[in-house]
């Protein structure tokens, strides 16, 4: 299965939930938000929501700003 995180192609041999996907890319859950194909997925759904073939995932985090 191939999918994209912030336009970078990634692949997985096994099905992944969003929580597992974050683990796979070593991304802590704190302070981040996810949208799949531009639909925001709330944190409570990450353990159930499966990554699908071709999904375009946006991964956002808090950063410094005024």
């Amino acid at each position: 299965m191939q999918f994209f995180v912030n336009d970078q192609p990634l692949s997985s041999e096994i099905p992944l939930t969003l929580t597992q996907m974050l683990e796979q890319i070593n991304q802590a859950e704190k302070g981040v938000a996810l949208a799949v194909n531009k639909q925001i997925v709330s944190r409570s759904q990450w353990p159930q929501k499966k990554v699908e073939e071709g999904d375009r995932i946006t991964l956002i985090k808090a950063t410094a700003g005024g």
Partner: protein
Amino acid sequence: MLTIADKTFNSRLFTGTGKFNNSQTMAEAIKASESELVTMALKRVDLNDDQDDILSPLIEAGVNLLPNTSGARDAREAVYAAQLAREALQTNWLKLEIHPDPKYLLPDPIETLKACEELVELGFVVLPYVHADPVLCKKLEEAGAAAVMPLGAPIGSNLGLKTEEFLNIIIEQSQVPVVVDAGIGSPSDAAKAMELGADAVLVNTAIAVSKDPVAMGIAFKEAVTAGRRAYEAGLGVRSHQAQASSPLTAFLEDF
């Protein structure tokens, strides 16, 4: 005490987290300033290179977070950014900023009002960053903004309160707190804004780019406290002629 929506603040100094040399200095400066509300931005995570963790020191410092929608060029993008911010930081507080032009970063009033209406419907506590436009500030208040944040001068310019006369009108008319944001370049600018009757000020660049951001954080804290105290005490009336402070008695006339 300052109350905005459901929160009360002892400090009337809000701070930003941008432009500091490192997150340790940022956290120390914010702690020293005693600011209780701190802005943050959002960015796309770079999967190849992302060591930047500024969130942990802020959570440790116990401050309230105010995510912004910087980067949004219109209402549609701002609403999307707001929803991502709510997910990322688990807060419905939002600094709404929409500035399509990167040269002056001046806020788009039409898109800001439109986004404010939508975001209030979606349950956000909206603090819109706007030009010092009294009519717009009233419209935002009617749309349900929790506060208004008119600018003193362009973001990061350190030019001070170029909009002073209009800030006066906004402060006089507003039923929601007025937070003077952007352009405040020195503690005296912050004190001035507070003397005018602003409920709070938001300062980022002036603290972050100082040679000693921790000391500057303290200087701003003191200026905001002094300005507020002066406002509450009531400033004297201005006059173009002298008004004697000492008795002009004629005791020297015989000399």
